[in-house]
């Protein structure tokens, strides 16, 4: 697939006021790998090329999806005291909240720690898989917007820190061991973060048409 390493085109809905790096009338521009378009006023990233190329992001995304079932099914921790052994899963916190009459909070915890990251990975796969296997270009603005919305509520890294804090607190009380589920979840959280960070922002064309360059775009 040509153009992965070289560049992609980023489309803007219309040249927005205040974004002076876009020449009036132009709505697309090619980017080299790792290049970013920043807002001249506030330094916000407006568009960037995939840092490692879309294939790397796709690989990270699929790794995350593969790690999800073991993260869900294997125990996070096993705690034992006086011969009684109890395992904690990702789900057990959710069911505990549900049983205590806090079903909405339980669903919310599940949404932030599992559903949103999984849907984000699914959305990234949906964005990256079609251009990987076909040369026809079809922008997916709705899917891209969905990915941005999901990323805001996907916080597996916060859950990882919470489990670590819980683990240390519990170790003063009972004997605890980290289970394989936690490692899978932590790895899933890490690849999700990497996949999102290396993913291109804006819409990338697999076979880019070279547009005139504009030197005010900062690398």
């Amino acid at each position, binding site marked *: 697939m040509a153009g992965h390493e070289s560049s992609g085109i980023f489309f803007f809905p219309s040249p*927005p006021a205040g974004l*002076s790096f876009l020449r009036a009338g132009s709505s697309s521009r090619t980017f080299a790998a790792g290049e970013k378009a920043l807002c001249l006023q506030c330094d916000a990233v407006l568009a960037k090329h995939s840092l490692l190329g879309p294939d790397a992001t796709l690989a990270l995304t699929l790794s995350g999806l593969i790690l999800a079932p073991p993260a869900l099914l294997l125990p996070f921790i096993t705690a034992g005291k006086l011969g009684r052994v109890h395992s*904690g899963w990702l*789900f057990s*916190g959710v069911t*505990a*909240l549900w049983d205590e009459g806090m079903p909405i909070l339980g669903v919310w915890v599940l949404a932030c720690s599992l559903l949103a990251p999984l849907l984000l990975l699914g959305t990234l796969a949906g964005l990256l898989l079609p251009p990987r296997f076909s040369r026809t270009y079809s922008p997916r603005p709705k899917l891209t917007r969905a990915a941005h919305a999901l990323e805001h509520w996907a916080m597996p890294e*916060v859950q990882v820190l919470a489990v670590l*804090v819980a683990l240390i607190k519990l170790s*003063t009380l009972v004997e605890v061991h980290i289970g394989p589920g936690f490692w899978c979840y932590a790895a899933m959280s890490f690849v999700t973060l990497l996949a999102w960070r290396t993913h291109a922002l804006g819409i990338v064309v697999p076979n880019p048409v070279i547009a005139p360059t504009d030197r005010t775009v900062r690398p």
Partner: protein
Amino acid sequence: MNLSDRRRAHLSRSAALTLSAAFMLVPANLLPVLSTQISGQLRTDTIFSGIVALCNQGLWPLGAIVFAASILIPLLKIAGLIVLLVAARHGPAEHPQPLTRLYATLDLIGRWSMLDVFLVAFLAGAVQFGAFATVEPRAGIVAFAAAVVLTMLATRAFNPRLLWIETAPAASSPSPSSR
């Protein structure tokens, strides 16, 4: 980030959400967030007493993490949102660049407040040893989770473009400039 939306209504929506979040923080900090029963001894903890207990156990690094996530970040977020809302009240702000950085920072740190919610949920799920030890969530954690979600929605509702542009249609035309 939305590039073209200039609706003024976003400011009042964000202000309403910020106010609700500030109100929600009162029960979140006064009500107990979890109760622990160890060998028949019952103890209920608020967010603050939980942090004190962690420090008393000698786990002060954990206490510091929970303090930052559960007390410092929510207060900083609400204070920061108030600064942004006041600055954007009458059109463009005088110093939009640092304020926009403040906005980006608030957006970045907000999610870490969920730490305490995840912590209570996980402890309640993992510590079920019958008569020896059980942990149960209490109503305060619902109020706290609501406060966190409301601050995140308030940040989302605030449009940083309001710090830069006139809300009247006579916006500045793009002129090429380099920095």
